[in-house]
């Protein structure tokens, strides 16, 4: 059951001494860790540990009061979410954030928006460059639809799909951007065992086939220990553990946070 041991020499993203607070509530305190290029990095921790806040900092949705995030060798200060997207960071959400009024196909097509450049004029005519662009991106999206095995719901409005499929469409939308860093916020929450196995397979395949670096938050310890290369453990906004799954499993602070400790 030991996690795969692979080595990753290059750091893609590093987080240094991040602190984030909302008024008097400290969501994150002095967090530092790094994500290596090509690895699957998990962030775990009990509820309210600050995991989602951490992802929100990475993709520019929250602005930490202290600390710095270095991505692809560039240290950045304030960043807007769409700027993070432009630099190759995509994510999925804990509560599904699909565009409910649109079909599966259109939802995944939105993931390619940053690559679609034709202006109003050609779009209004829908000929020439606009049509070529649409077809070209449709092909890319169809590859993702094949990869995620959701061909049968291509034209269905996403609001009518079951939960597990919606999660898959959301992953598809993130993949459509061909990200370098993919942030997954509880990709398996609320799924049954088969759906979880499917999702694990997709995550591993994305990592293997496209070489996408993945940072995921997950509560299912079996899943985390199986698929991730390294794990960060947060508790009450502080980092209490970091390392390969076996190290984390035997870390006393982590065991205490999860199981409690006798006094």
């Amino acid at each position, binding site marked *: 059951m030991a996690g795969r041991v692979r080595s990753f020499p290059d750091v893609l993203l590093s987080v240094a001494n991040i602190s984030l607070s909302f008024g008097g509530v400290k969501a994150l305190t002095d967090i530092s860790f790094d994500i290596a290029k090509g690895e699957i990095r998990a962030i775990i921790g009990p509820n309210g540990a600050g995991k989602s806040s951490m992802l929100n900092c990475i993709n520019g949705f929250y602005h930490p009061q202290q600390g710095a995030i270095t991505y692809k060798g560039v240290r950045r200060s304030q960043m*807007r979410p769409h700027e993070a997207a432009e630099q190759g960071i995509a994510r999925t959400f804990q509560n599904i954030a*699909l*565009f409910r009024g649109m079909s599966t196909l259109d939802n995944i097509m939105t993931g390619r*928006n940053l690559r679609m450049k034709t202006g109003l004029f050609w779009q209004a005519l829908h000929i020439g460059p606009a049509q070529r662009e*649409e077809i070209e991106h449709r092909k890319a999206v169809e590859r993702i639809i094949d990869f995620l095995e959701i061909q049968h719901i291509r034209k269905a409005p996403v609001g009518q799909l079951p939960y597990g499929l919606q999660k898959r469409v959301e992953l598809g939308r*993130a993949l459509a951007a061909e990200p370098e860093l993919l942030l997954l916020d509880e990709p398996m929450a609320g799924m049954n065992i088969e759906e979880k196995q499917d999702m694990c397979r997709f995550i591993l395949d994305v990592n293997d086939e496209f070489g996408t670096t993945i940072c995921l938050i997950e509560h299912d310890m079996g899943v985390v220990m199986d698929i991730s290369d390294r794990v960060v453990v947060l508790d009450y906004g502080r980092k209490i553990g970091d390392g390969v799954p076996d190290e984390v499993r035997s870390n006393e602070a982590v065991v205490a946070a999860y199981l409690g400790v006798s006094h």
Partner: protein
Amino acid sequence: MLYREAGQFKTTYVADQQIFPILQDRVFVLAVTVVAFLAVPMFASPYLYTEILIPFLILSLAAIGLNILVGYCGQVSLGTGGFMAVGAYAAYNLWLRVPEVNNLVVVFLFGGVMAAAVGILFGIPSLRIKGFYLAVATLASQFFLDWLFARVKWLTNYTPSGSVAVGNLSVFGWKIETPADRYLLILGLVVLATLVAKNLVRGHIGRSWMAIRDMDIAAEIIGFRPLRTKLTAFAVSSFFIGVAGAMWAFLRLGAWEPLAFDINRSFQILFMVIIGGLGSLLGSFLGAAFIVLMPILLNQLPGWFGIRMSTALLSHLEFMVFGAMIVFFLIVEPHGLARLWAVAKEKLRLWPFPH
């Protein structure tokens, strides 16, 4: 039996992405277009043109414009009348002051472009305010524009009551004189505008609008810029509304004053969009047809059954029945007439073997 896509296989993405993927739809739409262009002029009376067809077509275009903003991009607007006025008066001033441009298409496009510019200006607050609050902000634009055209005399060429008139109109040398001329010009422009609107909403720009409408945070995180997307919607929407306003002034009214584009006009167009169906171009047409035709129908109905009524009672009854019908429709089908149509088509696909 007749309406079924079975056997119509798509082998290219172009074929799959066409506007009407089902053959029967293509035939139907083509037939309607041919009838509108060729058959209608053969029998239509001036009354049918000026009271039914022309208002229906122009208000459909305005409803398409508003639907882009409200239905596709989710930004509520109560400033439609004001933007129509901008289109009308911009077109009027170009027509008046540059007589060399005696071409209605150019005049209308100018009206649309000016309305788009004003729309962008009043769309800027939409980055910060949403929902009802944005509705109130656009309401302010309506009152401001009303005031502007009533008070800034240059815009109405210093006519005493602000009432202006146009005449001697032509398009590329084609003199627009009879109601049939006006109808054909409007029909041509509305068909083109509808095609443009459809192309926009099925492309990446339309998807950006719908993404902002459905979940703005997720839209921003996958790379859409909220302000730019919303302002594109405001610009395109106001362009269509401005063209519709110019057409309303030039081809429906001929002579008008600022009151023609007051707050009631804004509400009228908004009702069309809501009753027809938010986020549906077909719905814009159905809504406009409902709002234009229903009062006329209600007015005529008692007469057909030989019931005599005083005009005052008739007009009050018209308001009451009309209001009741709007409420009824919104309860039965909150997604508008377009959804009813879609449901009917879905049923038709399976008919007569629903299982």
